[in-house]
């Protein structure tokens, strides 16, 4: 158990996929054993592909009656021993929030791909947005922390879907792949290697499934049918799963451990790219599809001698707070373009000592490189 290299399911080589198709192939590469979902634009194509491909590789696919049933069946499947995934967009992500809290509290590994579209509500169902970022952090009630990734290309939708399964199994936590309509429906060439590195669930027969000696530990995870007589509940519980619904110390310890098991390992989880930051006077902090426009814009302005750098966040939660604190102490200004009203900009302002300029665009279109160039010219 733990990390191991396995052969890729797809023969190594180049493929021309949409983002949705890449998610499906990433799940297959990660040996996902169960996927349930409900049709929703712009995520439907992943379901359609998996309904065919899972039949070929011997995994189980279910189209459920709604998004709540989809994620709940994934939690059941995860405890029955499968790597499980559900796929949706904003309205479905909203419906799934209660079950996300259940998955966090019962430490159930789960991958959720949210192909974001412009909201709120039905919004513009076929247009792009990035408005679910804070929902990935705070959407379910109570205090918790999950992991959210932000891919910027079809290649990364493939790679980060695999990474999401590894993180989910490693930390026993739901992991969100925050795709966007623009990447979900984009067709690009991707490279598939000969091997994939996977993390497989740790089992330890007889060990408590919900507690460890360490205050930030990740317990081993048994599955149904192992004879462990599992007791799984969304109520506060001790290390054996026994309900403890009035004990202050047990609740504090559990809620704190679930945060610490992620936060204390954030260096292991957080991934980012940086470009031209060494001598930068202005830093652009970006993620997802917007980072494509931002990098193009910065390279244009670099050609004119403007000292601008780019930090692209590949992991949104846990947040790269230390890194942003450091950048904020070295540059004069930080610019944050995004397809929402400043959800990540608000987080950057918490940690950066310098001036932070938010550019939030909510018109259902991608942030164009020329828009970013125009905005940056005002700052430099």
């Amino acid at each position: 158990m733990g990390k191991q290299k396995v052969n890729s399911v797809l023969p190594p080589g180049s493929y021309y996929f949409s983002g949705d198709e890449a998610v499906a192939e990433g799940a297959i590469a990660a040996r996902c054993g169960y996927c349930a979902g409900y049709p929703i634009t712009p995520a439907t194509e992943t379901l359609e592909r998996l309904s065919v491909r899972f039949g070929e590789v011997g995994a189980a696919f279910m189209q459920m009656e709604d998004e709540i049933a989809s994620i709940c069946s994934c939690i059941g499947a995860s405890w029955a021993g499968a790597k499980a995934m559900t796929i949706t967009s904003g309205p479905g992500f909203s419906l799934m929030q209660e079950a996300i809290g259940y998955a966090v509290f019962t430490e159930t590994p789960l991958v959720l791909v949210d192909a974001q579209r412009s909201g709120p509500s039905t919004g513009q169902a076929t247009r792009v947005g990035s408005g679910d970022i804070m929902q990935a952090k705070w959407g379910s009630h109570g205090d918790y922390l999950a992991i959210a990734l932000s891919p910027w290309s079809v290649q990364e939708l493939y790679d980060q879907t695999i990474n999401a399964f590894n993180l989910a199994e490693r930390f026993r936590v739901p992991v969100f792949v925050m795709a966007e309509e623009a990447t979900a429906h984009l067709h690009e060439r991707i490279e598939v290697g000969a091997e994939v590195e996977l993390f497989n669930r740790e089992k330890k027969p007889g060990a408590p499934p919900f507690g460890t000696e360490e205050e930030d530990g990740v317990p081993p995870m048994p599955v149904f049918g192992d004879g462990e007589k599992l007791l799984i509940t969304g109520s506060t519980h001790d290390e054996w799963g026994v309900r403890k619904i009035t004990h202050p110390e047990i609740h504090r310890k559990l809620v704190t451990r679930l945060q610490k098991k992620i936060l204390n390992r954030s260096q292991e989880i957080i991934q980012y790219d940086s470009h031209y930051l060494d001598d930068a006077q202005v830093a652009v902090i970006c993620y997802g599809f917007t980072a494509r426009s931002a990098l193009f814009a910065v390279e244009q302005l670099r050609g004119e001698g403007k000292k601008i750098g780019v930090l692209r966040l590949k992991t949104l939660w846990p947040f790269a707070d230390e890194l942003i604190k450091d950048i904020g102490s070295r540059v004069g200004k930080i610019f944050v373009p995004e397809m929402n009203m400043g959800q990540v900009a608000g987080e950057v302002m918490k940690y950066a000592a310098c001036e932070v300029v938010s550019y939030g665009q909510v018109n259902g279109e991608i942030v164009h490189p020329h828009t970013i160039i125009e905005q940056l010219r005002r700052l430099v």
Partner: protein
Amino acid sequence: MVRELEKYFRPGIGVTTYCPGCGEAILQGLILRAIDELKLNMDEMLFVSGIGCAAWIPSPYFNADSLHTLHGRTIAFATGAKMVNPKLKVMVISGDGDLADIGGNHLIHGARRNMDMTVICANNQNYGMTGGQVCATTPEGALTMTTHQGNPFRPFDLCRLVKAAGAVYVARYAVTQPVAMVRGIKKALQTEGFTFIEALTPCPVQFGRRNKLGKPAEMLKDLMTKCISEEKAETLSTEELKSKIITGEL
């Protein structure tokens, strides 16, 4: 529940959470009796329950894998587990509010898909755990904490609903019919596909008290007089049938 069935209880469980006079403790014993008579291996069973009094029947008491889930979503959770490990003998045990109100959609879709699981719905005609509010099985006119002038709406006939949705075995028994109930649960467990038992159980503390149905013993007696077989029902007039409940395989 008799002492010999205590071997199915999780070690260390001292007390149960039922109110005085609750019929769910009887149902708990009858479910274990059926499992015992069929000699099922508890290590191959998965009990899934939701939120509410009846969700406590298997969890934490039964010494087997148990998944105590969100309110209403039991059948969805159970579906995922069964899809991944078909060897699991899946039993969903929950209440009427959980399975038929908030979870009604999952109930009919589980039946439509004919997922291989046995669902036991403890019907106590109200939301007991939250203090006795109206639910989808509360009789018309009944008093509850949210229908002080009487329930203005008709109740679901759960067996007809689930049968129409495609369940392969559907039966209704009251906890006052222990022998028939055990036989029904056994048959449900032995039948492949989606099987459903509606277990009528009195709730003296929350429902009986407000509707002046008397002490627990009187509520049990009332169930004994009301519950009749389909054959018996055929001999009665429409007017006579109004006060009766048809039980048996439906």
